[in-house]
């Protein structure tokens, strides 16, 4: 397959945009551009005349892109990828991964398929990384709360740390709750009474 499609990536986050560009480059496409701000979109479409525009589903600027396609009578006639429902599986996968693609000048679906697939894979990876990052942050927050709760128990009851933790765990088991929830309640109560 020829790898001469012109692809424009619309992504405010530079790191994310580079990530997608890298993935597409690795997959063999070379005519790649990224823009971060949608106010330049109309101009970019004229300048680069992309065959495909890739944009995150969650990006509110999708509406703007769609409008440019609807009113433009030049070569830049963007058509939402989802117009082509000959491949519902691909459409569903794109939707689930949060990628929207706009085919600019009516390419054959089989030509854009691998572009979209590469983008989907990359979007999924980024989404996974994001949720792992969120989970890690949450775990850190939880750890801090539990440490505070342990500290409160240690001071109030004059007990060592491992006992304080056992006490928390027992309370959680007795009440059928999570340790973090019991810790949170203790910290909140302690703050109120302080």
């Amino acid at each position, binding site marked *: 397959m020829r790898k001469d499609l012109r692809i424009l990536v619309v992504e405010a986050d530079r790191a994310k945009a580079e990530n997608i560009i890298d993935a597409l480059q690795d997959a063999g496409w070379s005519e790649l551009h990224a823009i971060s701000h949608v*106010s330049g979109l109309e101009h970019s479409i004229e300048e680069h005349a992309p065959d495909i525009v890739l944009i995150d*589903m*969650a*990006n*509110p*600027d*999708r*509406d*703007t892109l*769609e*409008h*440019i*396609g*609807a*009113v433009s009578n030049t070569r830049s006639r963007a*058509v*939402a990828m*989802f*117009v082509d429902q000959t491949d519902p599986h691909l*459409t*569903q996968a794109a*939707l689930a991964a949060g990628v*929207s693609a706009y085919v600019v000048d009516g390419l054959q679906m089989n030509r854009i398929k691998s572009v979209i697939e590469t983008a989907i894979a990359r979007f999924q990876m980024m989404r996974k990384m994001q949720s792992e990052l969120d989970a890690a942050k949450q775990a850190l927050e939880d750890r801090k709360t539990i440490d505070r709760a342990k500290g409160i128990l240690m001071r109030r009851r004059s007990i060592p740390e491992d006992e304080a933790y056992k006490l928390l765990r027992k309370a959680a088991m007795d009440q059928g709750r999570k340790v973090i929830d019991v810790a949170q309640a203790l910290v909140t109560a302690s703050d109120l009474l302080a």
Partner: protein
Amino acid sequence: MNRTVLNCGYVPLVDSAPLIIAHELGFAAEEGLELNLIRQPSWSALRDMLGLGHLDAAQMLSPLPVAMTMGLGGLSAQIDTLMGLSANGTVFGVSKQLSHTLSPIEFGNPKSLLAQLEARGPRPLRVGVPFPFSMHRLLLSYWTASAPNLVVESVTVPPPRMAEAVAEGHVDAFWVGEPWGSDIVSRGVGDIAMAGSHVWGFAPEKVLAARHDWTENNPETAQKLMRAVYQASRWLDLEQNKPLAVEILGRSEHLNLAHEVIEPAVTGMLTLSAGAAPTHVSQFLMFHDHAASFPWRSQAAWIAKQLGADAAGIALAMTCCRTDLYRKYLGPIGADLPGASEKVEGAMNEMTAVASLRGQMILAPDAFFDGNTFDFSADTAE
């Protein structure tokens, strides 16, 4: 009792209130429904999610089901307009930069405003609108069509970014729903010149939409949803509930907006220019009164006509409006039902009592600014 969970899409605007109130005040729960309100970043995302089955129902711009059914723009699908969620509620205004070059604008006078804009020279007027298939854009093109020397470029700007677009001179004017018009005014970058209702007195703004096959396959759920939303809309339009409505909407996680920006839409007290005293705009945003929730087929016909449809397209658009379901599902719970499902759009200059099931239906003025009327029953009667 097990509740049916319904994935329901919305865009965070004041006029998504019927869905939020149905959820927050338990109107949905009373029907055995759990509304899983899923916030959408854009109208195109919402449209795709509904069309591809990831949402069961959604708040939509009134032209969107018509456009989708006619196969215009993006994903097409056969979409039903189950009922209206709101009428009116949009404003048109100009940037401070532009207003300085015009003589003082008389609020709510579309004709003189148009004359002023036309007189400012041949440079195109760039107007920000939320979406190509929105009542905002249709009213803009209908209004400006009577000024042949005025070149209008409509630019799609996500409403939360409209103030920025006005401030940066990216657009000269804006047509937007609340709270974003008030947002522009409060930032001192633009002034409100008229409400959408000054161009069309009673324009359908947002609707409750679902895929046609979903409506057909889930009649009971559709009925429950419509009843819950109907009750919420009725509650919203009762004068004594307005302060509480502002309170609930303000603290709901769904809107994430401050009370003071929700208030103008709910009360109709709009500040037109930074520092000015608020002006009352009658029937600024209607949820229920004057049959605001009835999905008039003639309104869909008007929309289709503005979108360039021929007679067949207009007839198709009219089938989107499920007046049959509205009658069947909401009649038994006390909704007043008009004698006909179409009306002559634009024919009423004042409150008008019309024939209805309970005999209590009073329709509000729905005149167009140019005095034209649209009678679609003649076009489609066969």
